[in-house]
């Protein structure tokens, strides 16, 4: 149990998917202007990543590896993730419209979120077990969500500040993200 906790802390704080591994920057910049959006996106990423993480692990272990097709990982994973996201979106829209409103609208964004794809690949590269993959998928996603929410809090204020014109919006957002990454240096060596 302790190992899993350590793994989780490492994924959330120390090797934060976004700030230490640079994955998922596009939606990070896109959905962090408002706190509500950030929270919705964070939840959606957790939801999808846990599903994608487990499914791609299963596909890798039971389809690709037995046939020696490891080199097809990229294409297989992206296909599975894209279909999964689209399926979940359709499913939610029809069956649970309430949840769809809060979460579903962020789903399409996730298809091309390299964080999802990246975590699936990391899971395989690091040769995690299924349970470990589940833990890392969840914690990487939680780390993404955490960074997103923190960033949104800061960004909401920056949007109100007198930022010089050429720096407005994305440029200042990137600099701030840099500060965020800097702050997360604090956790180095903790796990």
């Amino acid at each position: 149990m302790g190992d899993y906790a350590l793994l989780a802390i490492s994924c959330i704080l120390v090797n934060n998917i976004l700030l230490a591994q640079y994955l998922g920057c596009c939606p990070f910049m896109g959905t962090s202007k408002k706190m509500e959006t950030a929270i919705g996106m964070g939840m959606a990423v957790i939801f999808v990543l846990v599903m994608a993480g487990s499914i791609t692990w299963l596909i890798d272990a039971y389809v690709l590896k037995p046939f020696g097709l490891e080199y097809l990982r990229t294409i297989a994973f992206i296909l599975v993730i894209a279909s999964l996201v689209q399926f979940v979106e359709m499913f939610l829209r029809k069956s649970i419209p309430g949840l769809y409103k809060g979460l579903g609208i962020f789903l399409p964004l996730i298809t091309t979120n390299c964080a999802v794809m990246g975590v699936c690949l990391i899971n395989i590269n690091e040769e995690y077990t299924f349970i470990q993959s589940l833990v890392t998928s969840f914690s990487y996603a939680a780390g993404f969500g955490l960074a997103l929410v923190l960033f949104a809090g800061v960004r909401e204020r920056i949007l109100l500040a007198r930022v010089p014109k050429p720096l407005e919006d994305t440029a200042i957002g990137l600099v701030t993200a840099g500060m965020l990454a800097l702050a997360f240096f604090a956790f180095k060596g903790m796990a």
Partner: protein
Amino acid sequence: MREIIKMIVVLTVLSSFSGGLLAAIRGGTKEKIEYQQLVFVKGPAIRNILEGCSNDPIVDRFKIKDGDIERSFFVGVFDGKANTVAFEGVGKGFGGDIGLMVGVSIDDDKIIGMGVTTHSETPGIGTKAKTDPKFSNQFKGLAVVEPYKIKPDGGGIDAISGATVTSRGVCVGVTNAAEIYKRLKPQIADKIKEFK
């Protein structure tokens, strides 16, 4: 309904086509890739450690089962005698695992050299572990019995200034490697006889 069928057909054909194409390319590059992996990841360190050997250690390699793991050993031939092996050890550094290669002479069980292969340390400071010969040379000639420690921890190795964690990680890696060596020594001795 027709639309769905068309969609299914297109997607299936496209996927299988891409599968085929990739498999073909894969077939053509497989050998090359494996060799490249060895040359670039471990090659420099091996060559550095087994400096002056008369063979190509990457070609002259053998594998030994250590529990579940298969370990690769690279043989160095000195003065016409295959009396040295280089193999891997792993330590934990500032930014993740530090992979290193240790060369041991089986004649006198002494380390003849050490080199860092992979790491993700801070450039400039932690990387000195890989680039600074002063640091790695300290391991030369040490016996494989002792646990290696940096001076602040009570050992005899001078840490790289400003990179205590990295230095400590390297020491742990070398210690690990030494343990592997002690454990597998009989098999190594067996196998190495094949190279004359």
